[in-house]
């Protein structure tokens, strides 16, 4: 497979993630879509690293996965806390951060 294929797959994953973020209303689904975005970027990093013969990209990808794990933990913790207070994680109902 050429580099191009990897990039194409990555772009598709990214597009799915973006679409999900914009259209979905459930907090959990949005978090999952964010994971898709992150992992499409990781895929790019690994692909470039592999094709350029340079390990740095892969190291970056591992860092990125670790950070994504932390971010997901915090995100879900927020959602759990939110659910306890508001009995919903539908983001349409959570819009108090505004004018």
């Amino acid at each position, binding site marked *: 497979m050429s580099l191009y294929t990897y990039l194409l797959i990555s772009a598709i994953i990214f597009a799915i993630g973006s679409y999900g973020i*914009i*259209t979905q*209303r459930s907090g959990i689904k949005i978090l999952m879509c964010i994971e898709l975005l992150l992992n499409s970027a990781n895929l790019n990093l690994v692909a470039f690293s592999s094709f350029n013969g340079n390990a740095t990209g892969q190291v970056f990808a591992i860092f990125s996965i670790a950070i994504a794990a932390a971010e997901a933990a915090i995100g879900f913790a927020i959602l759990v806390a939110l659910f306890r207070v508001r009995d919903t994680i539908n*983001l*349409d109902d*959570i*819009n*108090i951060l*505004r*004018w």
Partner: protein
Amino acid sequence: MFSDYAAFIVLLPVIAFVLTLFLGKKLYSGGALLPIAAIAGSFIISFGIFLEIYPKDGIVQQSWPWFAGMNIGILIDPLAVVMLMMVSFVSLLIHIYAVGYMAHDPAKPRYFAETSLFTAAMLSVVLSDNILQFFISWELVGLCSFLLIGFWYHKPSAAAAAKKAFLVTRVGDVLFLAGIVLLYVNMSEIIAGRGFTVPAGNFILQFKTMFAAIPLINPTQLTYITLLFFGGAIGKSGQFPLHGWLPDAMEGPTTVSALIHAATMVTAGVYLVARTFPMFAATPSTISAGVPDSLLIVAYVGGFTALFAATMGLVMNDIKRVLAYSTVSQLGYMMLALGTAGAVVGAQAVGISMFHLISHAFFKALLFLCAGSVIHAVGTNDIREMGGLFSKMKITGTTMLIAALALAGIGIPFINIGTAGFFSKDMIIEKAFEYGQLKGDFIPYAFAIIAALLTSIYIFRLWFMTFTGTPRSERHSHESPGVMTRPLMILALFALFFGFAHLGFYDYLNKNFELLTGEKAAPESGGVQMSPIVVLLPVLVGVLGFLISYAIYHKKMLDMSKLVSSQNPLYKLLLNRYYEPKIGADIIGVKLTHDVVAQSGEFVDRKIIDRLVIDNIISNTLFKLGEFIRKLQTGVVQNYASITLLGLGLLILLLRIKFGGT
């Protein structure tokens, strides 16, 4: 060896200031011993440096770079070393005296901390080697003066006097600063345009660099610079027309008056003119250039002030105010000496003026401390309520008489025996006479000789009214404790015998600028033979003044009630101090500054800038814009995400357009 520790002359009192301020409450007598020890240290170092540099005609120079071609430095030449010794010595005695005088004051730590800071600042003025550091210390001295005049700030009159002193001296300080700026501009110009170079290790505003640059500076500019400097000196030394703050400054404790407003701080103005004397002397001495030469103005302002202040000294009833006007008048003499003798004997004028400055410091500090001792005993400042104190206060009375004799310049001419003032003041008056002969202008001489007569009258009036006659009020006065009388005795010794140092003093000071710039001073002008009458006259008027006061205030040979009444317009004029407070405070202060300048400024600021420009234009526009933009914040997360993605897309698009690619 001592010169290595020159910086400690200033640092010791600064350390004492900090320690006394924070720890004073827990220490003996409000921490008085710390400043006393520190200032004694400063005096010992100063004296040690004097002993080191006097035999070999040396000077001490230390300098550290600061910023932008400026430096911080120490310059101890003959001029500075005599000032250092005088300031630290007088300050030391007054601090010791203050232990007794301020014994019942609750705010002693603040008092001793502030006087210690003052001493540090004044010493720093004296040993500055550049005009900028001089100015900074000068301002610090002004601040201490403000704090100490307002020491009893709960008294409205003291608070007002402190404010007045601060504002009036500020006028002078602004002129001084303008002078420094003008000097800097001119220095930069001659460095850029006329090939003047500042030697390595020297700095642009150092005194020696300034003096080296004198021949290159445009003479008219030099006159402006020196006149602006003199403006600063007028403010600090209470010369006409900025003299009004000094008598009001007597609201502070008497020790403060003695230390700051008689012996040391107010002489900073004279010291400034003496320090920059080569610049004053180099100003063009003809009026043809469209500007009179600076020394002429110094002489006239000084002479006029000497006479003008002495007239007011005649009628004041507050013991300290008489002395305050006396100080103003004597400072006038020092300026007069710089101006007239400067024209006659060149840089030797500095020695003549400084000698009077230092002998004045001794006897005026003594006069004030005696006055403090009297006030301490009697509990009032009004000499009309005193009288007959001599039998109860023998030491104070005797020392004050010595000081009065010194102030009046009593001595025996021709065989040269006399008080300190006899040598110093007579020299000034004689030089004024020589000036008259040289220039055909006897007005400064007339000022000086009439002022000498008035000086003698007012000081003996003060003494007779205080110490002789019958007590005019029922008060249980007593002699002050030893901690107060001993400094009086030491100062009295100096007031009596310091005069004998005059020849050595003149010789030493004459070398000053030679040592600094390396240029030979002008040869001595051969010593004009004075006619006996000129030599005799200053002493004669002194004795005459004594006799007049003796006749009027002791023997009561003349009935003064007619003269001293509100019907007599002249007396009224003098008692109201030539309406100076009225003109200064009411007309210039309230009417002009407040009603016209401040009010119109307020109108422009509040009505035009605040209301019209800021309210109507700027803030309204911003508010409306904000109202519109805040609607964008919907609070729906998807909106934000969409806009972010849109932005990302736009960014990629822009990059494509900009850099192309496949």
